[in-house]
């Protein structure tokens, strides 16, 4: 579904991504793990067109989307949940969700999806009129995921959904990720929480200072000595 080929990204003089290759097959959960500054977020940002790549190709559904405008990429169903939640703090929960469906014209389907999001996150339904900024971190993350789902994604890219959340809520978020996947949404998940991510993922990549050093099936990586030493602290 998504193929990243030999992608290079520079921030000024810094070579952030050094020719990485990633494949995200349809209907799978793929995860990208790595330490701070490894280039995980940069990969997502350049895929969705927020950061310009210097060379390489990004192919989505057999279409070259390298350096295209974000809004065109989003309307093709490639959607990102940005790092650190980034909900619109002074707007209500409902307004946040409506904005998620900003590029969609099919009003009835939007209403149906809104219902689905409220079913998925009953806690959001209790807080329809609450300002997003006044909710807890976990609820905001749910809203950020819900808002992305309103865009009707075919491929959902999540940037560290467990960041700064209590372990119990992290568990809840990962359960929801599996549930979204069951609905037929392909997921590219970026995580520092390697264990949780590899447990749900079908395939994983390990990123280190801009290059992919390891890849394999989720469970294989989980049992890999190097990964255990570096990321799981065992």
């Amino acid at each position, binding site marked *: 579904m998504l193929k990243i080929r030999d992608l290079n990204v520079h921030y000024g003089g810094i070579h952030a991504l050094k020719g990485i290759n990633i494949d995200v097959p349809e209907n799978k959960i793929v995860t990208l793990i790595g330490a701070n500054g490894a280039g995980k977020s940069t990969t997502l940002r350049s895929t969705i067109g927020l950061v310009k790549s210097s060379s390489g190709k990004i192919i989505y559904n057999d279409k070259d989307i390298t350096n295209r405008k974000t809004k065109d990429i989003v309307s093709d169903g490639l959607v990102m949940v*940005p790092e650190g939640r980034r909900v619109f703090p002074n707007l209500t929960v409902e*307004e946040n969700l409506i904005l*998620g469906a900003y590029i969609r014209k099919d009003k009835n389907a939007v209403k149906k999806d809104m219902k689905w999001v409220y079913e998925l996150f009953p806690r959001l339904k209790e807080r329809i009129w609450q300002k997003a900024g006044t909710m807890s971190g976990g609820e905001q993350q749910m809203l950020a995921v819900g808002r992305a789902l309103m*865009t009707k994604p075919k491929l959902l890219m999540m940037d560290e959904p467990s960041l700064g959340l209590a372990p119990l809520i992290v568990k809840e978020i990962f359960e929801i990720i599996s549930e979204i996947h069951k609905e037929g949404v392909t997921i590219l998940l970026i995580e520092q929480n390697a264990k949780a991510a590899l447990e749900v993922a079908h395939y994983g990549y390990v990123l280190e200072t801009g290059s992919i050093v390891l890849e394999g099936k989720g469970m294989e990586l989980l049992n890999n000595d190097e990964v255990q030493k570096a990321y799981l602290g065992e």
Partner: protein
Amino acid sequence: MKKNNILTLISIIGFILLLLVLNITLGSYKMRIFNLCGIYVILALSLNLINGFVGLFSLGHAGFMAVGAYTCALLTMSPETKEMNFFLEPIVPWLKNVQLPFPTALIIGGIMAAIAGALIGAPVLRLRDDYLAIATLGFSEIIRVVFTNTQRITNGPLGIKGLPTIGITGQSWEIVIWTWGIALFTIIFMVLLINSSYGKAFKAIREDEIAAEAMGINLFKHKMIAFVIGSFFAGIGGALLGHLMGTIDPLMFRFLLTFNIVLIVVLGGIGSITGSVISAIVVTISMEALRILDADMQIGGYIVKGIPGMRMVVFSALLMIVILFYQRGLMGTNEFNWDWIINRKKKIQKI
């Protein structure tokens, strides 16, 4: 029709009738201040769209007002008045004999301001926060300096005097209908715009640009739309202001004018239409009412000599207090709505 819409319609009609009654009962001095209130409502709303709803910190309002005011003035004045004004250097031939009716000239003034907004916005809107403020302020000063030096078009630093009064027939009731009529139109337009999907996108950009972009909102397009609409209404407001005063010159459109409008928007609440309207009226009236501070004062037997501009100190102090202790301003981001009034009434009745 919904009940609230009917209430709105009734209050608009009631308000227009009130305008006509006020025009008869109030004297010409008070009426002039009242008209000024209407103009400041237009200006405050146009700045609030840019600063409050899209979150672009623009300080270029005076420049767009100048474009609107000069365009409208030069298009409505009779060839004789123009000749009297341009006594140092004659006016350019293509402007000499142009005379259009007031409404046409007003709209052209707004459109010219919008074009200026688009031309300035294209390079400047890529900037953010303070940098945007500096750039827009700079461009607004450039407009003023250009107007000072294009003697044959704008009459330079001499300014233009003898602008025809607002309206077609020149009667006093027409002035109040034009100023407050356009103010009402601006209010309704802004309310509809903010409640549309464009308005939601504007707010999303204000809240978080990156998240808004990730939702597929075209940042530049939306910023540009807001900036151009804001400039258009600034031009209209500037044109009305010029025609109400009867005279314009480049010095009128200094940064101080922008500051007055920023003051109104901040006091009323950045991002609230209701707040801007209330604050525009209150500030405009108090700017006149506080003129006593400029005059000589007797404090405990001593006579303190009057300092011109003393009343502005009150506003500066007020602005500081608001920013330090009450950043939300009068209304925050809240808006007036009928349900709130009705619920209040019910509560009071219960007690």
